[in-house]
């Protein structure tokens, strides 16, 4: 498909709430239906001619941008690491949606667990790619059970003993009797750009990248002051 305008892909949910003020700050104001929770529309126009926004699941943001169906977007580096798309550039760390991707296991297991002796672990996760690579790097084979949510249930119901999931406050883990045993990566949301679009439509895209970068820089400076 050929899009003559620029399409920006944003993730639904928690991250979107943090993205919105940044969007306004760089001068992008989506049409009213965008913030209307009951709207069933998927594609929205903005005050910027030729710039439209799509609202999709966070994993799908990366897919839309990698395939060039969207030119620019916002995605967590958890998603970027999982797919490791060669077609995506991540020029700006927006510093929002901060959390960490961690390994967790039941508290009682931590007492006598000896990670050095593992040759195989079974793990419930939304991130089988990262999980497999992470454990393979230390010589452990990770058998991943792909779940799309409610990972914390898996250990208590005997699906498997360990999970790899995003942790922000750690409250959900505690409530489910789990302890965070290892941090795989620190996560935050990035402004991402499709590689071919970056090369061929740089003049249209770079000003937006630059505005987001300046915004982040100002905010970081303000925080430091």
């Amino acid at each position, binding site marked *: 498909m050929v899009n003559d305008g620029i399409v920006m892909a944003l993730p639904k949910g928690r991250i979107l709430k943090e993205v919105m003020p940044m969007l306004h700050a760089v001068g992008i104001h989506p049409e009213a239906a965008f913030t209307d929770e009951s709207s069933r529309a998927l594609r929205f126009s903005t005050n910027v001619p030729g710039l439209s926004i799509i609202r999709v699941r966070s994993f799908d943001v990366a897919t839309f941008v990698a*395939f060039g169906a969207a030119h620019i977007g916002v995605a967590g580096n958890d998603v970027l690491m999982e797919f490791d798309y060669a*077609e995506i550039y991540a020029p700006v760390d927006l510093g929002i949606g901060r959390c960490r991707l961690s390994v967790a296991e039941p508290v009682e297991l931590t007492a006598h667990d000896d990670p050095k002796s593992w040759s195989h672990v079974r793990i419930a996760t939304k991130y089988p790619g990262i999980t497999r690579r992470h454990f393979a790097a230390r010589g452990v084979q990770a058998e991943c059970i792909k779940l799309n949510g409610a990972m914390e249930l898996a250990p208590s119901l005997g699906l498997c003993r360990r999970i790899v999931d995003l942790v922000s406050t750690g409250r959900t883990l505690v409530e489910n009797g789990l302890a965070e045993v290892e941090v795989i990566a620190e996560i935050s949301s990035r402004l991402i750009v499709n590689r071919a679009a970056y090369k*061929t439509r740089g003049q249209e895209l770079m000003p937006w990248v630059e505005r987001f970068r300046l915004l982040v820089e100002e905010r970081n400076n303000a925080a430091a002051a």
Partner: protein
Amino acid sequence: MSEPLSLGLLPEGLRDVLPPQAEAEARLLRDLLDHLRAHGYERVGTPLIEFEASLTSGFGAARAADLFRLTDPISQRPLAVRSDITGQIARVAATRMAHFARPLRLSYAGPVLRIKGSQLRADRQFSQAGAELIGTDSAAAVAEVAGLAIKGLLDLGLEAVGVDFVLPDLIGRVGIALGMTQAEIAAAAEALDAKDIATVAALPHATVFSALLKAAGEVPSAKALLAATEGMPAIVGDRMGTLAELVAVLPVDPRLSLTVDPGETRGFGYQTWIGFSLFAKGIRGEVGRGGAYVIRRPDGSEEPAVGFSLYLDGLVEAGRGVEVRRRIMVPYGANSDVGTWLRAEGWATVAALEAGDIQAQAKDQRCTHYWDGKTIQPV
């Protein structure tokens, strides 16, 4: 026992190509090869399957992970299906054509097979075509090859063609000139490849690397920005000067955009001093790529070369090359002169093999017209 296979089912990433796409692919290929031949590039053919060791060594060395492998029942050696033709051309140039005068200009085309599709395209088999100029990698040679690729794409009638040049060894040389360690250079290259502005700004010699990142864009402005950056190692000015001269002799066309990304190295591990990606409007990802590289000869010596490859499937998928040829149904028993005349007029003639309602026959055979014995009639 596995489930019975549906007769039409093909393995993942493989497909049949039907009319008119099969015709379109053949036409694109013919046009491209004619264009290359007209510029003195001679066609060579290489086998689909080779000894695995030959495919995985030398330039364009196929990544072992891409190869379909089998054991040769005759020699008992491991064989592999080619995943890229460039490496085979390098082998031919280094062995059977080693005694031919340089520069040697060769062209090729054919299907290649990979074990897995890419993230952007599930296809495992696709059609590769290109040209290699062996014996030199001078700016003039690169300009000739890039110019051929550009002209070839423009002649296909594409709305917009983009060529993005990269200088694969530049970051390494800049790092050495600045006295950085290999680990520091690798970290810089990684940050530049991700276009991660904040990380690049935190690198040692950040002004230099930030400028290299920011310079991505049109060649003259990139050159000016880099020249104006303090502390920029001399190699950058040299390379940008060479690139500017090279770009100046490329074809001029309003549909063509020429850019450079001096900080990028990803995906160009085999190229030496210059590489380029080819983009076309309406086609996902790259439509082809090229660059300068080194061919290793059997005696251990090396020779420079430059070339490009296009992947035709993306072009066909985007609807390029489809030509609606007028098809005319000719009745059973018609004078053979009629057919000869119609074909000379550019028609594709479809002969009826038995007498019958010519109009119905024409419709069945997907003809646009029929011959009523005297004149051409639309269906």
